[in-house]
């Protein structure tokens, strides 16, 4: 995404100001990978803008009252789907609630699900990926075949089957099914990354010095193989925000007393077209798109910074 400006740093080694980094050996260079990446990131306008938007959405999820004084649950059916006005900047929802406060409060469930699911799949994926990649042999065969099985089930189809049969769905049941169906991708990426790091000389050197397997994993393998997983996890935050909204829209995700972008869009869908009131869809859709977009741009910028060959 982001070639402009500072693209040269990582390829040409550290700039003159940074005298310590990159002087000797592979160990030094790999330590400065993070420093280089960070230097490139904070000069990258796309990364700055997307992080500001991500912070904004996170603060909406954590402290919605910072953004609005209006109670999203105070609704008057008589005032349903009115267009934007001074009292209601974004107009009102189908149920006659304030659309702006719904957009703000709707961030919370999506963000909780995205953060929780991403944390869980990253943890599971890293552990299984390291086991498979580092130990190889039988462990690898079992882990790889199990990931094949899980990847054979399309996310939406699997989630739909589990959630459709469940009577009361909430944030945790949606999170659970997303975790169960999405960890294998992280495992695959981590496994590949661990295998390539494991073959490098500094691992051999650590082993020759008498380091035990757990200490090699924690001190050498993990820090050198986690970069692609961090990139993928950032992209996944966006993917899960979108998956939650999609499942909710299909009617198998969150349900009405909850306030969520998926619910607002799904309620507005038919009325928006039949009564020609596009604002019912425009505002919640914009919030959802901007959130997903910020996570994806952030992930893309990090990929460019951490893996200069990928351009």
């Amino acid at each position: 995404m982001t070639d402009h400006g500072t693209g040269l740093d990582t390829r040409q080694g550290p700039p003159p100001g940074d005298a310590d980094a990159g002087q000797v050996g592979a160990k030094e260079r790999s330590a400065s990978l993070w420093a280089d990446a960070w230097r490139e990131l904070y000069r990258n306008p796309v990364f700055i803008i997307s992080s500001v938007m991500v912070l904004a959405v996170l603060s909406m999820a954590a402290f919605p009252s910072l953004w609005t004084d209006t109670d999203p649950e105070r609704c008057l059916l008589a005032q349903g789907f009115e267009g934007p006005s001074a009292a209601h900047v974004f107009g009102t929802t189908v149920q006659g609630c304030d659309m702006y406060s719904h957009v703000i409060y709707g961030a919370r469930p999506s963000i909780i699900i995205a953060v929780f699911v991403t944390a869980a799949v990253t943890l599971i994926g890293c552990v299984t990926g390291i086991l498979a990649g580092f130990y190889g042999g039988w462990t690898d065969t079992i882990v790889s075949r199990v990931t094949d099985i899980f990847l054979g089930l399309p996310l939406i189809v699997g989630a739909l089957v589990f959630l459709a049969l469940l009577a009361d769905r909430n944030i945790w049941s949606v999170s659970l099914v997303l975790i169960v169906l999405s960890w294998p991708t992280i495992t695959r990426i981590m496994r590949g990354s661990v295998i390539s790091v494991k073959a490098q000389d500094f691992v051999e050197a650590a082993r020759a010095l008498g380091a035990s397997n757990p200490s090699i994993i924690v001190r050498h393998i993990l820090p050198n193989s986690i970069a692609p997983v961090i990139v993928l996890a950032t992209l996944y935050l966006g993917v899960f925000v979108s998956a939650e909204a999609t499942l909710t829209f299909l009617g198998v995700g969150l349900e009405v007393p909850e306030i969520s972008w998926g619910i607002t869009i799904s309620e507005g869908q038919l009325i928006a077209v039949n009564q020609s009131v596009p604002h019912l869809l425009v505002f919640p859709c914009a919030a959802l798109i901007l959130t997903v977009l910020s996570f994806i741009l952030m992930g893309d910028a990090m990929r460019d910074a951490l893996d200069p060959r990928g351009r």
Partner: protein
Amino acid sequence: MGRYTARRLLQFIPVLLGTMFLLHYLQTISIQLNGNPVRALFGDREPPPETLAAITRSFGLDDPCLSQTGNPCLGMFADRLVGYAQGDFGIDFTEQPITDLVAQTFPITLRLTLIAVAFEAVVGIVAGVLAAIRKDKIIDNAVRISTVLVISVPVFVLGVLLQIASGLYIGVWLTDAGAPEWLSAAFSISYQSEHPWASLFVPGVVLGAFSLGFIARLTRTSLIETLRADYVRTARAKGLRPTRVVGVHALRNSLIPVVTYIGIDLGALMGGAIVTEGIFNIPGVGGLVFLSARTNETPVIIAVATLLTLVFLLASLLVDLLYAVLDPRIRYD
């Protein structure tokens, strides 16, 4: 080649069984946590116990293991597999065989998928090639920005937004301007059986949009990589025209991952069709699942999900086999 095919086919069997079991276990746990899904048929009314038991039995949901949370219900799984192998996918709540329902709805979904694939492949590859041969120029940046945008918009959001755009504005404008009927049908808000292809145009675009972004990026990266290869330099040095170098020498080799992706995507689009067909009211396989999810028609959801998963798995298998034909190096691994 023969050994690769044989190995890939052998690997397919445990994956197929495993995925089917995973799908089965997801439903089983859900039913165990939730109680008999047949109750949902009666809403708030309390059905006579005999009626409930009889209906439950006719849907094959009367196994006692369904009341023991965590029990994988292996016996039930085996029965189901035998049924699937004989082409028996059960009946819906109006006692129609589900295979009949799918047979009626499948042609529509197939048309929708074909439109989506044609759209994503043509537009995606053209955009990717333009971006690659004009790397870092305006067109490249435009392609990269628009692909990120397209990838970030969830399918259902694109669907509802395009639906208001075409329903409220474009469709009305076309009708006012006296456009031919098929053209207004292409921008109508729902499926019209008189225009089986035209009225699937906008839904097809929505369905293919996500993969379009992906294909454009994949083509761009892959072609940029290939254009650096020695044989491309040789072709240029021989004085071949640039169109021939890109079109014949480079593009053919860099399209292999793209073809693979499109093949796998055929299966994935079937899942995406649930959302698109739901929004645009299309009576296809996806629309069937969408309605069943809203009315709690458990047997339909289970059977169609199984069929969609089978299509997805078979598509990935075919792609893997095709891959060996396209790229000879893969045979010697």
